[in-house]
């Protein structure tokens, strides 16, 4: 049983003109087995939510709480959050020159589990996971994200998701820039992760396309740093048909 509870979360970033509030009070509860889609126009604060949960130093939490199974996530360092069971699949994964994928994955797995994985099964697991994501076995000898195509970066993120097996996965626009084949491969990976049971997924996306492959239980529409509307999968269909206009255009006076 694991539950991620976000309560009235307020987050700001430093800009040249002083701190700017991006999240203006976000409340969400993600229980295990649930998939929540967060949708919204550009600049609505979707990615800020993802990075704030992961603890990126650029973002300052000015109010609210985030707890994972009752533990105060905001009091944890970035790596403590990951070890507590949070995972962020990034929209723009970072290059780490000179560090091979296999070294990186083993180091991360060792950190998460608190002990080194058994070598034989580990190599088998890594190869199986890479293969499932249509990545060549030689992929593990390449340097992390260096020279990866956009699709390879995203598939590598999902390979990590499967291998590190967190409690709650936050996927930040994992679908952006993917062609339909890559989107299916990545979605299959997320669905395998979910099938392992007791997993929470927070799926951040601008488009409804990925929701055809990863079925959300709840859809939240994010506008201007707040949840403007929430509902079931049907809300995604509505957004597909109508777009975000009704949330972003200033309300007209009824009459």
């Amino acid at each position, binding site marked *: 049983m694991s539950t991620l509870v976000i309560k009235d979360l307020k987050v700001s970033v430093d800009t040249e003109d002083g701190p700017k509030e991006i999240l203006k009070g976000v409340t969400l509860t993600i229980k295990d087995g649930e998939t929540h889609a967060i949708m919204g126009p550009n600049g609505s604060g979707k990615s800020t939510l993802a990075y704030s949960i*992961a603890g990126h130093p650029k973002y300052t939490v000015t109010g609210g709480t985030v707890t994972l199974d009752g533990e105060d996530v905001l009091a944890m360092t970035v*790596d403590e959050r990951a070890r507590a069971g949070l*995972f962020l699949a*990034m929209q723009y994964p970072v290059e780490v020159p000179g560090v091979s994928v296999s070294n990186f994955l083993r180091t*991360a797995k060792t950190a998460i589990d608190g002990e080194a994985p058994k070598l034989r099964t580990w190599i088998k697991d890594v190869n199986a996971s890479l293969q499932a994501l249509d990545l060549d076995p030689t992929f593990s000898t390449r340097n992390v994200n260096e020279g990866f195509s956009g699709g390879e970066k995203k598939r590598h993120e999902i390979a990590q998701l499967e291998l590190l097996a967190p409690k709650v996965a936050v996927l930040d626009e994992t679908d952006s820039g993917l062609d339909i084949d890559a989107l299916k491969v990545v979605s299959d990976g997320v669905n395998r992760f979910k099938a392992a049971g007791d997993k929470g997924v927070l799926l951040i996306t601008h488009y409804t396309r990925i929701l055809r492959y990863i079925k959300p239980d709840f859809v939240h529409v994010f506008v201007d740093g707040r949840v403007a509307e929430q509902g079931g999968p049907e809300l995604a269909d509505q957004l597909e048909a109508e777009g975000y206009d009704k949330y972003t255009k200033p309300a007209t006076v009824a009459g």
Partner: protein
Amino acid sequence: MTVTESVRSALEVDKVESHLHPQGSFDVADHVVPTGREEIWRFTPLKRLRGLHADAPLTARSCKATWTEHEGVDIRVVTGDEAQSVRGVTAWAPNARFAARVLAEVPASILVDVPAEHEMAEPIFMEIEGVDLDATMGAHMTLRFGAHSRGVIVVNHTGSAAVAAVVEVVVGDGADVTVVSLQDWAGDAVHLSHHQALVGRDATYKHVAVTFGGDVVRMDCNVQYDGPGGSAELLGLYFADEGQHIEHRLFADHTAPRTKSNVLYKGALQGQGAHTVWVGNVLIRKVAEGIETFEENRNLVLSDGCHADSVPNLEIETGEIAGAGHASATARFDDEQLFYLRSRGIDDKEARRLVVHGFFNDLIRKIGVPSIEDKLMATVEAELAKNVLREDAEVGA
């Protein structure tokens, strides 16, 4: 400069007007004692050189040299006329007083003679151990590789000494030669050196400089070409700690057509007063058509109080080149890299360790001498333990 002068200099083939590489001379009297204001001395702390740049005696023998024997390779100490006959064999005249003095005054040279077409199965390992810091010394070595020969020599410097050294490397036509020089001195050593290579037609030369130890270590590593088609790869790795001055100067002098030079130096700095200097000079002479050159220097600053100078210079005298470029970057840890690693559960110290290992990894893999590669990975680890991985090291949240 008047118009006539500039036309004349444009037509000049052999002589190049440049403040970067002054004309050389074998005559010590032609070299005044540097004051520190000269372009080629402006970064070097002359006061800490124990007079090696000026008039300190160079005749003491305060280093012990030992080496591994190899069948078919002649390695010995030569003196007198024979010593003089192996000096100045790289078509080069010293551009610094200390180098001219080494050629003129040092009684003996070490000669490594690899016959033509000889392929060495194992590297030559040479140990230079400093035993007396107070007796300044000069040292000269000639590495002569015959045409189409193949071999690796690793020179490892340890202990305490104050040494001015010249190493000349003759790479015969078609030969494939790797020279690795490790400066793993004790913290008080002073080492001023000039490595001069003459790369033959279609020959391949790799020079690797690795500097961790010493109080002041400055190495000038120069390459010229004896014919078309030669290729030089100049690699370097350095790690400067508190108070250390480590200086590497490279000069790829493209004296023949269709030659290549590729320079990659990477350094890390940590501790108050750690100072590194990298100056990469490339000259493409008029005759050197169709050449390719690239030079790159990267520095990773691991703590406050460090100073890294990085100066790439490219002088081009012909329009007919295949490629020429350079890159230089000096930076602290990349916060985004650390965030990415830590978001996978890797703690801050381990993340930093990974980044530094990664920084040096690609370079170390290019050396091509497995025993050296393992040793360097261990040395990087030991250097990290002094600062980044120290138990009480300040760690960001």
